[in-house]
């Protein structure tokens, strides 16, 4: 039997636990650290831990590999060192490293989960992502259940390595202990109180087999619960430990935040869409034998609306003419857009006066002219009616660049109309011009954002009216859509990546449809469309 002197100096006080075991599996010696680690072990006792005894037998049979196992609460790596016929087991405590490794895995997972959850602001996608992450890292299957309405529970389930599956069903959340509570925002029910055998059929993914253990964790939201996360393990797997349950809650907190953010975004987006609907430029088309086309681009890429606007109001209520309006209000961005909305609504109400542009502008001026406000606008009114193959136009510019007309032969004319802007002075004056558009002639209404855009190949030149006229000349004989697109495109390309103002164009031409009937060449003739 070895003694301490033989084992070497300092052996008893070495910082690593050492247990010397003889060929019969009996402890021959143990140092101080060994006694601290294994309080039950004494010289003469038989090695009790099965994993260590198996490892010992393997070493005696000629092996030399290290063994890994647990002694009490500690994780141990046991290194065998032959000591004559005996084996000295150096038992290195790796509990701290194990915990660190687990912690690192969890941190990695939370980082992955966070970036995956942050990616989408779509609530459905967010639910799918939550279920998939949970099924990959935390359980054999996971369900994300959203607070439902009128008994309907929207849910996403995902089995490990599977695709998330959406479902919505009539179900009573109180059938699952803890689920009703979680959806109402009550604290989680510990999983050991939940009998997995009592889980209702709808909770179990198809072909999942028997549920061995089950955790229900609330997904905390911003003020209201975002839903619940249900984790399932098969019966042959270990049950969820307290520690795992706690970790699931950490993940659920992140998933809940992401889901709530997605819900908030979806709600805001819906509100914006509804409010924005009337501010967006309308889609233009053929009206009464006259083709209209429009193009619009807000100054900022993040905005969809701005201070430019256009509308086309078909003839009706005794008016023979279709009224096109294009304008520009002071200011930019959303506030300007709101003002365009008011002007467009006012103009719609004033449509019965459209036969008299001066009167319409006067009434609009009165409406905008309130002592408290400094709102003003410039605009062009264009009343159009088909006359045989031609289109008769009455055009009035109010503080706005006068429209241009390109003839079929490429000649470009400026329309002789001038007027004062609306919303500033108590009385305004304007002059209306009359233009006849023969087939293949085009009238262009544009806002100053088109001509004032700076850029070009050399950087800081203005696009200018001369270039606009040149571009328009090249559009002679084109359909309204093509001209609008080309003018808009040239101005946008002139700007390149540089900032530009709001831009709007409207083009008007005679439709090229076969003229079926026209009552005396006037009125609302019928055209194929």
């Amino acid at each position: 039997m070895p003694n301490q002197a033989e084992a070497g100096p300092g052996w008893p006080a070495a910082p690593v636990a050492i247990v010397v075991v003889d060929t019969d599996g009996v402890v021959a010696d143990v140092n101080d650290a060994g006694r601290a680690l294994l309080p039950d072990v004494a010289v003469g006792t038989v090695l009790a831990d099965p994993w260590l005894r198996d490892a010992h037998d393997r070493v005696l049979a000629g092996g030399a590999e290290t063994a890994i196992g647990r002694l009490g609460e500690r994780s141990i790596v046991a290194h065998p060192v032959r000591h004559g016929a005996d084996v000295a087991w150096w038992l290195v405590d790796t509990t701290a490293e194990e915990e660190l490794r687990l912690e690192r895995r969890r941190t990695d997972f939370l980082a992955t989960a966070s970036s995956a959850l942050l990616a989408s602001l779509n609530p459905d996608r967010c639910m799918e992502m939550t279920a998939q992450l949970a099924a990959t890292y935390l359980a054999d299957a996971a369900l994300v259940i959203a607070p439902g309405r009128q008994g309907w529970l929207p849910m996403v389930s995902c089995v490990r390595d599977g695709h998330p599956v959406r479902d919505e069903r009539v179900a009573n959340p109180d059938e699952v202990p803890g689920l009703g509570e979680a959806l109402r925002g009550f604290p989680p029910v510990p999983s050991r109180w939940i009998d997995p055998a009592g889980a209702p059929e709808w909770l179990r993914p198809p072909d999942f087999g028997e549920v061995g253990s089950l955790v229900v964790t609330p997904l905390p939201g911003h003020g209201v619960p975002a839903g619940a996360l249900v984790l399932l393990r098969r019966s042959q797997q270990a049950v969820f430990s307290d520690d795992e349950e706690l970790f699931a809650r950490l993940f659920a907190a992140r998933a809940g935040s992401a889901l709530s953010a997605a819900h908030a975004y979806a709600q805001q987006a819906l509100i914006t869409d509804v409010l924005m609907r009337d501010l967006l430029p309308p889609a233009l088309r053929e009206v009464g034998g006259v083709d209209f086309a429009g193009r619009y681009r807000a100054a900022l890429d993040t905005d969809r609306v701005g201070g430019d606007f256009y509308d086309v109001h078909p003839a009706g209520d005794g008016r023979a003419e279709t009224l096109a309006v294009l304008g520009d209000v002071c200011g930019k961005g959303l506030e300007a857009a709101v003002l365009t909305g008011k002007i467009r609504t006012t103009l719609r109400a004033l449509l019965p006066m459209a036969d008299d542009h001066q009167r319409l502008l006067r009434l609009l001026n009165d409406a905008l002219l309130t002592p408290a406000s400094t709102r003003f606008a410039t605009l062009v009114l264009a009343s159009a009616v088909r006359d045989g193959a031609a289109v008769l136009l009455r055009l009035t510019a109010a503080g706005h660049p006068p429209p241009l007309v390109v003839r079929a032969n490429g000649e470009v004319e400026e329309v002789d109309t001038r007027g004062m802007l609306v919303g500033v002075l108590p009385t305004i004056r304007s002059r209306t011009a009359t233009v006849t558009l023969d087939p293949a002639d085009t009238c262009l209404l544009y806002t100053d954002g088109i001509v004032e855009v700076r850029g070009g190949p050399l950087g800081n030149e203005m696009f200018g009216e001369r270039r606009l006229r040149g571009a328009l000349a090249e559009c002679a004989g084109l359909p309204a859509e093509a001209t609008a697109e080309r003018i808009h495109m040239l101005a946008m390309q002139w700007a390149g990546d540089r900032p530009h103002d709001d831009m709007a164009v409207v083009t008007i031409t005679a439709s090229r449809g076969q003229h079926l009937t026209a009552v005396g060449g006037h009125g609302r003739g019928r055209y194929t469309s």
Partner: protein
Amino acid sequence: MTATRAVAGTRYPELLWDAVLACDEYAARDVAFAALDAGVSAESVLLDVVGAVQRRVGVEWAAARITVAQEHAATAINERVIAALATRTPRPAARHGRITVSCVDGEWHALPARLLAETLTLRGFTVDYLGAQVPAPHLVAHLHRTAPEAVALSSSIPTRLPVAHATITACQAAGVPVIVGGAAFGADGRYARLLGAQAWAPDARAAADRLAAAPLPRPVGAHQPIDDLPHLADQEYSMVARSATSLVAAVYAGLAERVPAMRDYGEQERQHTAQDLAHIVDFLATALYVGDEELFTGFVAWTAGILAARGVPPHALHAGLDLLAARLRDFPRAGRLVAAGIDQLERIH
């Protein structure tokens, strides 16, 4: 579905071409309807008749045989034909997921994307067609709202590749995979792979086949454009792109001294020259971005052809590239590209 008739061997593409060039929307529509009535499938009318005519428009324009205005007109007529076809063809029930179809911002050729959108609709996808001129923030907001299965991005102009890359990355950051198509990504789709798109398709039919076969893999993990293109760290792209207008101005001024003919140029010709130089610098910046010499030399060869057609003396382009090379002495990668462009010119002449 009833037996359908192939377009090959029919005169429909030729008839539509004539109608489109004549700006005759109604005749154009009648050709498309006649093809439908003769048993050609709606998809085939879209892709083999309208699509064929549109491809021909592109070829004729690139060869300067039709004007830009005619190109616009033809596209406008084709758009109308597609809209008319949509009203004549029953929409199938939704059998597939939701797809967003959009052009890269700054892309004006919306028709290929429109054809894809219509094709996908005919195949039973739910399609959101956003069209051209969609700033990336709008596209991403749309993705958040609708959570499509994939985004199909179209771009025909190579100089939009940096913007395309930013857009692809933004869509992926929103968790949505991207399939790209269009001439900008190269005939073999090389730039699609380079810019990290999940898939590439040479045409609308192939894109629809790919999307119908299986969902695209969802992007994993956040990544940034620089991760795909580590060579951007040399800052040459940034410098050339940022100083593009001053480069153009300097080369333009130098050119006026070296090419005597320029002194007699009118306003229009001066404008053309400045624009040609701006395009050259744009292509140079893009070639620096994707790190591909061919993108630049190919453009130089094409420009040489166009200038010859316009009657511009061939040495003007050579002189322009020489001046550009002189301005880029501090940028080795850019310098090599311009030198390759000059080699290309010398091979032509």
